[in-house]
């Protein structure tokens, strides 16, 4: 009789311990995330409620939601235009990336292809290079009006020199080509490993049934690699969506503006939030844009899940 409560206590304490144990294990990681991710967001939230700016550097105080009222009037037409550009940028980049990577990976997996390992290593190159260097190399080595490869080709063919980055449409395409160059290797690698995991016997039986290349691709390859590819597509979608350095370094670097006025939401946020030295207002703009991005990613995430 006496044993029962003791036993129950033992079970409870074990249950408690089991509840606590995972938390203690993940505590260091949680602290780290708290310091690096959560604290800055909360602090930005706090600053957005104050009048911290150049003229109130040490003597700032809480002024309520005034900054948000100003931020919302700022986030008007410019923001919507930037959002539209960003969506177009993401969609175009992703579609081209997935389709191109798929066919290049198929090509790399053709039976009897000589030196396929060599090609794969070569294709990895753009991915291994630091983005900052690739972008500046492209700016000078490819697009530059005087020394760029593209203009050398144009000149050799007898055409006039072209400034690829001075107007929005050519600049958008130039940025996209560079982004594809930089992002394709990852996609190709993913596709390549996914393709290698497909059971070859499916193709053999399909061949016996008389299916050609397109039918095999559509009914066997695509469904077979889809579950493996979805995580990498989601990841790449996010990195493409928040792409900043390509657009910034190619067209809007301080002191060497190219003339194009392309804005993605991240370059827009940068331009509106970090040049005025008004930290209160900048924080409010950041929080508003942060909110938009969260909403947008929830929306896309749900879309992707449904599709999966």
């Amino acid at each position, binding site marked *: 009789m006496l044993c029962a409560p003791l036993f129950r206590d033992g079970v409870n304490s074990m249950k408690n311990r089991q509840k606590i144990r995972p938390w203690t294990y993940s505590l260091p990681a949680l602290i*780290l995330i708290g310091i690096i991710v959560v604290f800055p967001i909360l602090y930005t939230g706090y600053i957005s409620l104050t009048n911290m700016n150049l003229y109130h550097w040490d003597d700032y105080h809480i002024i309520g939601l005034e900054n948000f009222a100003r931020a919302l009037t700022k986030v008007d037409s410019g923001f919507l235009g930037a959002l539209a550009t960003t969506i177009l940028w993401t969609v175009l980049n992703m579609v081209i990336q997935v389709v191109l990577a798929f066919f290049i990976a198929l090509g790399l997996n053709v039976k009897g292809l000589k030196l396929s390992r060599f090609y794969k290593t070569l294709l990895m190159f753009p991915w291994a290079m630091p983005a900052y260097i690739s972008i500046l190399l492209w700016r*000078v080595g490819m697009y530059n009006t*005087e020394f760029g490869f593209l203009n050398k080709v144009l*000149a050799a063919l007898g055409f006039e020199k072209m400034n690829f980055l*001075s107007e929005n449409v050519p600049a958008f395409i130039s940025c996209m080509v560079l982004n594809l160059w930089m992002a394709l290797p990852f996609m190709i690698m993913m596709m390549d490993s996914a393709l290698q995991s497909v059971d070859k016997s499916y193709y053999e039986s399909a061949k016996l049934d008389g299916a050609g290349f397109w039918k095999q691709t559509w009914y066997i390859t695509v469904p077979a690699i889809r579950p493996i590819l979805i995580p990498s597509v989601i990841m790449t979608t996010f990195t493409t969506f928040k792409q900043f350095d390509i657009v910034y370094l190619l067209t809007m670097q301080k*002191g060497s503006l190219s*003339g194009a*006025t392309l804005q993605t939401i991240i370059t827009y946020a940068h331009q509106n939030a970090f040049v*005025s*030295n008004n930290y209160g207002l900048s924080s409010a703009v950041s929080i508003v844009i942060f909110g938009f991005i969260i909403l947008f990613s929830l929306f896309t995430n749900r879309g992707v899940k449904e599709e999966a």
Partner: protein
Amino acid sequence: MRRKIAMILCATMVTTLFAGCGSGTENTVATSTEEGKEETSANEGEVVSIWHDGDEAIMKVIEDQVNEELSDDNITVKFEKKSGLTDQIKLYGNDAESGPDMYMYAHDSLGTFVEMGVLSPITDVVDESVYADMLPMTQEAGNYKGEQYLLPVYFETLLFMYNKDLWEGEVPSTTEDLYAYMQEHTDADAGTYAVVNQHSTAYNVSPFINGFGGYIIDEDANPGLTDEKTKEAIEYNKKFAELQADGDYNTVTTLFNEGKAAAIVGGPWLISGIKDAGINLGIKSLSDFTLPNGNSLAPYSGIQGVGVMKHAAEEKKDAVAKVLTAISDPEVGIALAKEASCAPANQKAYEDEAVKSDEMIAAMERTAETAEPMPNIPEMSVMWGPAESLLAAVNKSGDDLDAAAEQYQKEAEAAITDMQ
């Protein structure tokens, strides 16, 4: 056993994690202050730290010269390079423990630092006579709202630099003749140019804007992008821009250094690259070019000056005063000119034979007559963006000047309102 290992690993991870959180700057500053303290106790002298974001070779010249002069006073000056100085001063400007005692930087951020409340006027520490010999233009640059905050040390401005082996005949003395020369000697398809300039960078277009009587921003922080004279200057610059390649910094300097452009409009910071490229360099002051309206070209100038932090002005007044006096000595200017090719702010330095005979420094001194210091009000920091967007829109994208000027004037006004 396993639990113990796990505990040890966990503890190590947490310690390293927090060790990593310490600010690098604080650490270095702390060490240098400690070193300073050690020295203090050893020599019973005082250490005055000056933060800068410039060329360390230049700072070394000043440091050596000043320390030599102050050797009897037991004061040591330490120049410390801090990249992104503006941000560093925002963080440590009012911090007597980890921050600097003085700083040396271009004058255009002066207004920002004063409004933040980190600087004391130098007149709180030294007498006006200390900076009386400085070129008037450089004194003006260090003056904000009627108070002198910077002791000018040296200045930079734009020059007309040409390749003597490529330039045919005399360099013209009017901009119209220069344009005619450019039309004759430019072959964009072949990639050879008469004159190149960063034609869409506000600093490099300032000789035209100021020469036409226009302005980017006035003293009362009104943007001047839609000012008729500014627009006239931008329109005039456009015809030159058409013959000046892309106008990107890397493009124009490479064109000149590779002998594909006969002349470049640029500052003294280009000299070392030009010398390395083996160009037979000739220099002409921009003040020696006349615009169609009869005015000379009037480039912006940037003055490197020394300012005093509020806490240092109170706590180390005597030492700071001695340092300022030592820096104002013409010998510092002469050393800067001879060893680092800088144009000194001190007029007396130009009496030295070696300084007088240096072609570039003589041209800089001459340009100082028409050069205008960049505005030093805080609002200028948000003007570069809209002004350069306007220039790029007009020169590179072929946008209509009036419409673009309206658009970027509004952007500039909004940016200025956002500062408040």
